[in-house]
């Protein structure tokens, strides 16, 4: 985009078809090559056949990027479509030549300004000056020397030229180190960085690679969008009431009210879980296992069914997978002794083929040697124990005991403009007009969200 702006600026310089130039009178000096905002806008409209607002916007972009600078109010970088005078920036200070701005150059500029203004720098410039002095302290001699010499060199010019050059430099630094509060045009938003398409050579190799890529893409298994979308809808409807942004969080949003009861009540290990949390365990087996409280209750349930060794085995395998490398052989051995050896204390029921494979792999233990067995036990628990858990009395009691936090009352003070509860909770409303199905907030049973 910078190159296009520069081309526009260059085409404005055409002596016959460019923008009309005027002279600027300052007391006794006359400086040529001033343009009015009006002329710029008209020229843009005429040359590119665009509407006035577009021309104004384009002109403003030119000013904001420093290709044009206002002569009367140099700190306000915008294009006024009236008689305000502007002047073109010298190509040295264009973005393509001198970007990014160097710290040393900025230090020299600030030192020069310091000399000219006898120490009266603006606040943010003073802050930058001190910061630079700390950062590039080792070259500070050079900074001072260069600043003095550059000012002396400038004195060799006529007064008019000196003024113009000073304005040019000032504009450059206003664009590259904007004062606080002014948005920097140089910041690239997230979308700008993506168009870094380099010129690709359209050779035979390129096309061969493209064909190979497309062939592989055709071979990939795809899910029909109808299936995907159904799953997506189901997921959203199930999780909607649980999302704090969509459905509000009780007692109150800590970011708004500075009251962190919400976090305290939903801490990983809490004595009494909230109702929403208990309901979430019904969504999928993974949810249950990932929640420490849920896992603990599931373990209790399995103990009543005398199949707790499954979960213990699974937990031991997790420890192996995520634990330290040095502990792997010892851990594998311990797991084997406790769960897999014939006649072990807590023998787990794995089918013969998986058992054979696992026993073979035990000879050379690594952290993934028990993966097959772990998966088998996981699926066993999921298909067998988990549905029973959800139908069990234990779970129903948990649901009944689960606490629903009360919404904090609004303060009575009338001058508290800050709303205490900015995201109102739909969960407590009697009717749901948003069309969320009751099943989501209702029965916990039979909700295996995994497909």
């Amino acid at each position, binding site marked *: 985009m910078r190159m296009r702006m520069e081309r526009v600026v260059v085409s404005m310089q055409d002596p016959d078809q460019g923008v009309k130039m005027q002279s600027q009178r300052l007391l006794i000096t006359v*400086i040529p090559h001033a343009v009015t905002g009006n002329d710029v806008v008209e020229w843009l409209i005429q040359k590119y056949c665009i509407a006035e607002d577009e021309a104004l916007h384009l002109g403003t972009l030119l000013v904001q990027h420093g290709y044009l600078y206002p002569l009367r109010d140099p700190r306000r970088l915008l294009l006024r479509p009236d008689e305000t005078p502007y002047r*073109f920036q010298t190509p040295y200070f264009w973005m393509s030549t001198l970007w990014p701005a160097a710290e*040393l150059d900025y230090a020299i500029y600030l030192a020069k300004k310091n*000399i000219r203004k006898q120490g009266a720098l603006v606040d943010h410039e003073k802050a930058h000056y001190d910061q630079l002095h700390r950062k590039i*302290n080792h*070259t500070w001699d050079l900074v001072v*020397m*260069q600043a003095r010499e550059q000012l002396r060199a400038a004195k060799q010019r006529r007064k008019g030229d000196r003024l113009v*050059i000073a304005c040019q430099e000032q504009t450059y630094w206003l664009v590259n180190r904007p004062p606080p509060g002014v948005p920097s045009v140089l910041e690239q938003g997230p979308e700008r960085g993506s168009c870094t398409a380099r010129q690709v050579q359209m050779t035979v190799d390129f096309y061969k690679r493209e064909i190979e890529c497309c062939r592989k893409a055709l071979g990939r298994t795809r899910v029909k969008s109808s299936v995907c979308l159904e799953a997506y809808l189901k997921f959203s409807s199930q999780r909607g009431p649980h999302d704090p942004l969509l459905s509000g969080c009780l007692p109150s949003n800590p970011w708004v009210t500075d009251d962190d009861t919400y976090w305290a009540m939903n801490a990983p290990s809490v004595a009494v879980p909230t109702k929403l949390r208990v309901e979430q365990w019904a969504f999928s087996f993974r949810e249950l296992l990932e929640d420490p409280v849920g896992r603990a209750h599931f373990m209790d349930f399995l103990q009543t069914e005398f199949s707790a060794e499954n979960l213990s085995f699974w937990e031991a395998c997790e420890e192996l997978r995520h634990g330290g490398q040095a502990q792997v052989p010892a851990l594998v051995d311990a797991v084997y002794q406790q769960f897999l050896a014939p006649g072990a204390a807590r023998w787990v029921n794995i089918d013969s083929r998986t058992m054979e494979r696992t026993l073979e792999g035990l000879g050379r233990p690594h952290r993934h040697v028990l993966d097959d067995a772990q998966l088998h036990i996981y699926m066993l628990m999921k298909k067998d124990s988990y549905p029973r858990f959800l139908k069990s009395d234990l779970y129903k009691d948990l649901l009944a005991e689960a606490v629903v936090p009360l919404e904090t009352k609004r303060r009575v003070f009338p001058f508290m403009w800050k709303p205490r509860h900015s995201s109102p909770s739909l969960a407590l409303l009697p009717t749901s007009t948003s069309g969320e199905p009751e099943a989501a907030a209702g029965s916990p049973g039979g909700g295996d969200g995994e497909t």
Partner: protein
Amino acid sequence: MAKEECKALLDALNKATACYHHLVLTIGGSADSQNLREELQKTRQKAQELAVAIRARLTPPLRDRGLGAEERAEFERLWVAFSGCLELLEADMRRALALGTEFPLHAPRRPLVRTGVEGGASGVAARALSARSLRHEGERDFDVEDLHQLEREILKVGEMIQDMEMKVNVPRWTVQARQTAGAELLSSASAGVSSVGGVSVQQRTGPCDLSKALAATIFSAVLLAAVALAVCVAKLS
């Protein structure tokens, strides 16, 4: 002695770099002309000569391991300033090349940017070369030849910087600058500048402004009139 000589050379290089920077500012603008390109060439060649001389003088003391700590610190300070200056020069030379290629002087369909800077910069170049004035003697296609030359010179300077980094090992961050923050506000009279030839040249204050001449004549006329009136009054009374 050696240190004072080095310091003098460094000041001269600093001056040349500052003047070169000032000249490069106007490339591509309305003040760009063949004269400017000539001045640029002369300034940068002078700067390069100075750089070679400084390097020749600074390298032996820094490679001498028997040097005292204070002396060494002083030389390191000079070295850091020197390499910084050289890097500034190289950066400006690169920009000059880029701008010079983009804004050739004699291309019919590429007008120069009308920036409002009009006057000549021979005073700046003269200051860099510590000369009274500058003669311009280039041929028509000077700028094209000059760009080729500039490319070669950039490569040379780049090599010199690289060589300097290899031969002399000065960790920059350990150097303590002598100037404090705000040092530039104290006596803007330069600390001991003496140019290379040992003769400090009086700088011309540039071509007299017409307005200044006018003001001077009016003032002297008024003064003469006042003197004449006083004489008349004295005679009559």
